[in-house]
């Protein structure tokens, strides 16, 4: 058998190194307390101007001017393909029942998928704008789905919640909303 030039020895350790990286990552994920509070650069700043077409047939689209009509609102960034959003849906419904008005931006979504999502998980939204290229999402300082912003009556961003809202965070979100109304 002909002896062939071998790959350098260190490459043999590569799989193990990658795997140890994976272990470190998940250990971190398992141990780390869940913390969704992040001070956003955008807090205290007005919403960038945008006007999005309607993402679904039975709700209007969303423009930045809709969010500056005197009443504080929640702005939920979501998508039908986003799995945490499914977990968040009943929580948003609960927020709506307790009087929060929720508008939404659907990120890179298709009409049919979104309709299926809303039918299956409920539709707590007053309006849903379609952001097909994440343009608005990036402009308001959101990098993922789901995220929820508290917008005051003048269209100023008051609070940013990253990740899904869990049931125990409902009172906190309502408090933030109330705070923004003062």
């Amino acid at each position: 058998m002909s002896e062939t030039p071998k790959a350098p020895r260190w490459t043999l350790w590569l799989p193990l190194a990658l795997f140890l990286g994976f272990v470190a990552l998940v250990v971190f994920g398992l141990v780390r307390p869940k913390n969704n509070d992040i001070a956003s650069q955008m807090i205290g700043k007005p919403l960038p101007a945008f006007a999005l077409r309607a993402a679904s047939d039975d709700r209007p689209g969303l423009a930045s001017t809709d969010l500056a009509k005197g009443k504080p609102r929640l702005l939920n960034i979501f998508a039908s393909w986003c799995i945490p959003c499914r977990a968040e849906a009943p929580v948003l419904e609960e927020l709506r029942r307790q009087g929060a008005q929720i508008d939404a931006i659907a990120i890179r979504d298709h009409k049919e998928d979104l309709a299926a999502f809303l039918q299956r998980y409920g539709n707590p939204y007053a309006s849903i704008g379609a952001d097909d290229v994440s343009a608005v999402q990036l402009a308001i300082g959101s990098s993922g789905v789901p995220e929820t912003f508290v917008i005051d009556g003048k269209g100023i961003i008051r609070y940013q919640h990253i990740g899904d809202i869990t049931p125990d965070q409902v009172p906190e979100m309502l408090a933030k909303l109330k705070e923004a109304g003062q």
Partner: protein
Amino acid sequence: MLPEIGLGMLWLAAALAGLQLIAGALALTEGGKGLAGIVRPVAIVQGFLAAAALLALIWCFVETDLSVKLVAENSHSAKPLIYKIAGTWGNHEGSMLLWVTVMGLGGAFVAAVERRLPEPTMLATLAGQAFVSLGFYAFLLLASNPFTRLSPVPEDGNGLNPLLQDPGLAFHPPTLYVGYVGLSIAFSFAIGALVTRQVGPDFARAMRPWVLGAWIFLTVGITAGSYWAYYVLGWGGWWFWDPVENASLMPWLAATALLHSVSVLAARNALRAWTVMLGVVAFSMSMIGTFLVRSGILTSVHAFAVDPRRGSFILALLAIYIGGALLLFALRAGTVSEGERFAVTSRESALVFNNVMLSSILGITLLGTLYPLVTEAFGQKVSVGPPYFTPVSAMFALPMLLVMLVGPLLRWRGDTIGRVSPVLALPLVVMLASGGAAFALGVRHALPLLGLAMAPGVVVGSVLPLRGRSLRRVPLNVWGMVVAHVGLGVALFGMASDSAFSIERLVAAKIGDSTQVGPWQITLANVAPVAGPNWTAMEGVLKVRYAGGAEQVMTPQSRTFWAPLQTNAVSALLTRWNGQLYTVLGEETAADNGAPRWQLRLWWKPYVPLIWIGGLLVALGGGLALLSRVAQDLKRRKVREKGDFRRGEVAKLEQGR
């Protein structure tokens, strides 16, 4: 009494796994040779004990023995028998018991029939199998005992999640599990080969049928799971890139790569270290997938009951087994030479390309699945979905399919592209023609267009290795390859057609209303209540006509289960040769002047069943290849026995003289 017997058998099986590990390891040393004889019988008995424990648990479910906590939590006396049985593995504990049973029976099967490998490699393999089993026995017995009793005994059980009460799901998880855990045999073979430094064509030939077997089950399991998600979730989609789906896709990708590299090793004694590593990676992906799903570290629609202790336990197992195997690989693979060389244009190179592409898809899938965890480490929670997975995986899959057309036509060791290029003209022309046709039909999105263009070419090109050969004399394993590759083309056509041509309508219809979906005319004739064994439903009666043809009736339902209380839509599907009509009955909406309206979701999906037909063809191709390999092996064994017999006779004659 039965649960205690089951638990006892489980402990016994675990003890035997310990014995199998110790005896197998000691038998490899000078002093312990005498122990070699017990390893195989112990492996067989261990497998049967685990199976008996599983049967005991199934019986508890069939009897609805509510004093068993698991039964009370996951079953209900009013459930049909098949779902009582399926309920056994529709939960965490039961599915882990199924896992160790498959693993035990797999080890028993290897111990009973595998005779090709040198005995030390075999002992190391069985010891490795026992070592892995032992961890899962520990997990089962210490952190997820399925036989725990409940006191006081409740009146009735909680029932099974209605989504899981479906015939497809009764068989889909066991099929996938046989695949996942079947890969543990490839893993143990790899360990055995690394320990004894025996990596060569013999090792590859011994390992190949086991890999093929596990791969067939994985293929069928994934195909069935995709169809289940398609018609049960009522979303009209067939793949969601959900972590659980990815968890089944990743081992399949690794096993597919392994399947091809093991062929190179068997035929040409090349790619040694790479094959061994894929053997380790394939089962590692099964374990990582299970961990990601069970630990609750990722949010998924398939979420099992989550217990952080379990997550840590599985993680510890992962660290020991995968870390250990990769450490062994790092230490030993350097002493395994890479084997024979080959030219850039050769069948080996095409297979290497295929391996690199499959591994890349595996890598990007793993990255996408883990990405939410990575960003969470930096304080952000995100979800990665189809907008990432679909184009990025297609970027690797499409070139791979092109090379798949060329590879089987090339000779081993070295070839020229000039020799095969005249043959390749045919699939290329087919691709251009079908791409043009799709464009003319108005397909403008890049991926569906590429898919529609390539799929017919892949089908035609996959048959090319048969050209100029007498079809009756083509070996069965070549047929297997052809059928599997054709299956990929067929499935690709279904996928591309679904995204290019699907038509969806969402209507709020009054009784008597008609609507048009593509060529279909659909009338809502009636909505009436119906009842089943453990549910009631509103059933819509739809009268449908295809292009003015004969009237057919479809009955989608909106079912309410009472144990546990949950509503879900049961879609009705109508399959024609050229596609599927998919109907879902939604909620009753606000009545206007007395007549209620019903939400109807209607899809016409041209050629969508080809996705699953293609998947099954791929599995069938694997089956043919497996059949051929097993037949070859039996023949070889028979010839060898005959030779031994003759030699014995000759020796006798010599002595008698």
